[in-house]
Structures are given as structure tokens and as C-alpha cells.
């Protein structure tokens, strides 16, 4: 799949932003610090949501995306995001201005922010035609980055360290299942064309000499050959370096370094998430499982 920068930024920034907001919602902040911390959370989440509009062909109709929540995970995500941001607003105000409103809004917002990230993940996990995505580890990875991102940005080392370790495990699990995902879907050129009963199928001539939307959007092959290296970068940056920075460096420097490397690693992971995912339509073009076998 084509790793569109707008979608990568969207999922990474909004994931980390919602995680940070959830942390603030539960634990809170006070005074001027509250203003800037809540501002950072809102900034990240909203920047992510805005960047998602850039991959639309007709962004001016984006409000229509709220209409089909009965069947569409994308629509559900839109609702969940708006409800989440709305729930956090009174809590942020109360923290900043010192109103004693309890943490009800914050905790409700934290729960809804998890629901939002889960809905984001389901946009991908629901798609059967991309076997690597159609798996229960996909929501786990998104929720893992949500929780870990919030804790790392907040510098809550006692909780962030175990969360980072869990995230590492979840990533390993996700990649492990991803390796065999295309083979498990059991779709081949023979099943795609229905000609397997006659013999082995290969491309004799492509249907068009130029590129097309399908090739650009769904049969992206550039990233797959670097998959192993990007996987390494993702694991080192989003898990190992933040652990080192938080456990040994500590202090503000440690938190800033941990947050930066974690986000960098998250970007690498998300780039790979798109770049190495294969769509079954590639079978019609003879682009079968090259990445699945090696990655």
C-alpha cells in the first residue's frame, strides 16, 4: 500500500496526542503548566486530524463523513474523535483555571480517546483484501502506541517503562503474524483469476502500458526491500532508546529525548505498516507475495 505522508502523520500524531490527553485527563495538571500541557495534547491530536484531510480528493465535503457510523469505521472514528475532544475541553478548562470539577470529564475523555484510536485501527483491520492488516494485532499496535506515547510524552517513567516493554512485545507479535499473513489468506493468481484448474498462471501481458491508480495506491513495492532495516529502526527508536533515556538519563532531557525518539520510531513503524502491506489486487498484476515471503 502507498505510504501517504498525510495518513502516516495523522495516525502517529493523533495517536500520541490522544494518549497524552488521556494521561492529562486522568492525572490532571495545574495552573499555567496545565494550559501548555493541554495545549500540547490538543495540538498533536488536532494536527493529526487536520493532516488526514490532505489525502482526500474532495476535503470540502468532509463533514459528510459523520453520517455513516452504522457501518463505517472511518465515520465512527470521526464521531469518537469529536466526542473525545469535546469531553476533554471542560477538564482542561478546570485544570487551567483551578475549578474543582473532579476528574469525571477527564476519565470519560480518556476512555473515549482509546475508543477513537481503536476505531482508527479498525479502518485498517477491517480490510480483508490487505491480509497483513486484517488481524487482531493491528488494534493492539495502535492502542500500544496510544498508551505508550501518552506515558512517554508525560515522562511518567514508572508506568512508561513497562508500557514500552509491552509495546515491544506487541510489535514483535504483529510482525510475526504479518510475515505469514498473505499466505494465510490463501489467495493466489490461480484463485484470483479462477484459472488454477487449468494450470499455473503467470502474466503474459499487462492490461496497460502506463501506470494507474491501482498500481500507485495499492501495489507500492519500493518499501518492501528495506523492510528489515525499517523494522529495526522502529523497534530501536520507539522502544529501546526511550527506555534508555527514561531509565538512565532521566530528568527533562531524558523525557524530551525519549519523546522525540519514540515519535520517530512510531513514524518508521507506521511507514512500514503501509509500505509492506500487500493488497490482493496485486495478484492480477502478478505482483505476488514478494514482500510477504521476505518480510
Amino acid at each position, binding site marked *: 500500500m502507498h505510504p501517504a505522508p498525510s495518513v502516516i502523520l495523522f495516525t502517529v500524531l493523533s495517536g500520541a496526542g490522544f494518549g497524552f490527553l488521556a494521561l492529562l485527563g486522568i492525572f490532571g495538571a495545574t495552573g499555567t503548566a496545565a494550559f501548555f500541557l493541554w495545549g500540547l495534547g490538543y495540538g498533536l491530536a488536532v494536527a493529526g486530524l487536520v493532516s488526514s484531510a490532505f489525502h482526500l480528493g*474532495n476535503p470540502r465535503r468532509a463533514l459528510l463523513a459523520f453520517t455513516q457510523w*452504522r457501518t463505517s469505521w472511518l465515520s465512527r472514528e470521526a464521531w469518537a474523535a469529536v466526542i473525545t475532544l469535546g469531553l476533554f475541553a471542560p477538564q482542561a478548562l478546570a485544570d487551567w483555571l483551578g475549578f474543582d470539577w473532579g476528574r469525571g470529564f477527564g476519565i470519560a475523555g480518556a476512555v473515549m480517546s482509546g475508543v477513537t484510536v481503536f476505531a482508527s485501527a479498525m479502518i485498517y483491520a477491517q480490510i480483508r*483484501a490487505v491480509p497483513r492488516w486484517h488481524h487482531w494485532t493491528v488494534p493492539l499496535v495502535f492502542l500500544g502506541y496510544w498508551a505508550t506515547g501518552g506515558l512517554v510524552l508525560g515522562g511518567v517513567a514508572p508506568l512508561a517503562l513497562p508500557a514500552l516493554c509491552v509495546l515491544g512485545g506487541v510489535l514483535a507479535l504483529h510482525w510475526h503474524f504479518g510475515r505469514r499473513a498473505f499466505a494465510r489468506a490463501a489467495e493466489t493468481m490461480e*484463485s484470483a483469476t479462477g484459472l488454477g484448474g487449468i*494450470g499455473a498462471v503467470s502474466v503474459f501481458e499487462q*492490461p496497460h502500458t502506463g501506470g494507474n*491508480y491501482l498500481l500507485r495506491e*495499492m501495489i507500492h513495492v519500493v518499501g518492501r526491500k528495506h523492510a528489515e532495516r525499517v523494522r529495526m529502526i522502529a523497534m530501536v527508536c520507539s522502544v529501546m532508546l526511550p527506555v534508555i533515556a527514561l531509565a538512565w538519563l532521566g530528568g527533562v532531557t531524558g523525557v524530551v529525548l525519549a519523546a522525540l525518539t519514540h515519535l520517530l520510531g512510531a513514524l518508521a513503524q507506521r511507514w512500514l505498516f503501509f509500505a509492506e502491506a500487500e493488497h490482493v489486487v496485486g495478484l492480477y498484476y502478478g505482483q505476488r507475495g514478494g514482500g510477504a515471503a521476505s518480510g
Partner: protein
Amino acid sequence: MTCLPARTDRKLGLVIDLDTCVGCHACVTACKGWNDQGYGAPLSDQEPYGAQPSGTFLNRVHSYAVQPDEMPAQIINFPRSCLHCEDAPCVTVCPTGASYKRAEDGIVLVNEDACIGCGLCAWACPYGARELDQAAGVMKKCTLCVDRIYNEALPEEDREPACVRTCPTGARHFGDFADPESHVSRLTAEREGFALMPGMGTKPVNRYLPPRKKDRPAEASPLAPLLDIRAGGLAGWLDRVLGKI
């Protein structure tokens, strides 16, 4: 609405005969021609005469070499377009309600006025039936020529999809799969028509007819006897002498 209808009164779709298709791409051209001039945004091209021409098409004809165990390979031309699935995943993922499946005839359509061009429906389709038009920014797909098949301004023989109407070998058939007596239902039953990637759970309506079995494989190559060459005369003598050295 992106909820799929529980059932459709009719199931309009295509039968594509892989035995008869000669891969001339006339259906591709007729489709592009018809869908350039009426229903929805025209199918645009980018750099049609430039270095990297590209464009939106609703129908693509692949060509495959299929290699049986003990026979020469067969070339099979394979038109690929929307299969108007009963469980169309492209419809349910749509966030705006632009994608829908009609309850009356099962045609899967896009309301372009509501399409935000997010591309999620194209991801959801296992068959690559949808292409996002780069000029209009809206999703395009086969409409089964909904603006022809019910169009009383057209002569009766033209009230079928442009690809079917134009096919010079009669490899494409249009009809109602819900009616067991229809032309397409009978063809599917007689020729063991099959659906593409049934494992994807989409329940396609369109059916493909497999190529007929080669009934005279021994005579497949008229040149075969010529391959067993026995030289005579001087050449024969040379052949024998050289063979002994």
C-alpha cells in the same frame, strides 16, 4: 446509505466468457467512451500524450499464460471490472454514504456529490474495481451503464452496458442472475461459471466462464511431424560419420 440491502429484487451483472474473449480491448474503449459523456464526472486522463500517460478506466483486460502439466501454455484474456458483489465491502466502509448498492437491481454505485475521495472503498475492494479520478477527486467505478440499460431514448438493442454492446466476439453477456431462466443464469449453469476469489467473502454477482477444454491436444501443433528430421544423401552420410567419431 452504506448498509447493504438484505436482498435485492434483481441481481444484474455480467457473464464474461474467457473462452471467447480475444483480448481486443474494445470493451475498455467503449466503456471509456460512454462514461466520458454523461453519467458523473468524465473519466479523465493525465498526460495522455506526455511521457507518463495514465488515466481512469472502469475495465481492464489482463492477459495470462496458463501452463497445464503436459500441454502447451494457453493464453487467456481476462477482462476485470466491478463484480457488483452481494456483500460489497466497498459500500460498508464508505464514511459519507456516497457508495451504495441498489435494492431494486443490485447495482453498486457512487453518488459523486457525496464522495470525499478518501479512497477507502478502493482499498476494501479485492478486485481493483474502483479507481479514484485524479481530475475530479471522486471515486469511479462500473455503473453497469445504468444510464443505458433503462434509457428509453435508446433503441432497444442498445439498452445494455457499452462493453457488452460492443464486444465483437460476444464474450460478454448482461442479465439478471436472480432469474434462474435468464440468459446469464443458464450460461453460468451450462458452462460452470465461477466467481473470483470467493474466499474474500464478497459474494460477487458477475461470473466468468472457463475456457473450454482443448478437445484435440494431439493435433495442437501442425508442425510437430517436422521436428523429427531424418537427413538423407550426403547430409545423411555426414550425419552418420560425424555421429561415430
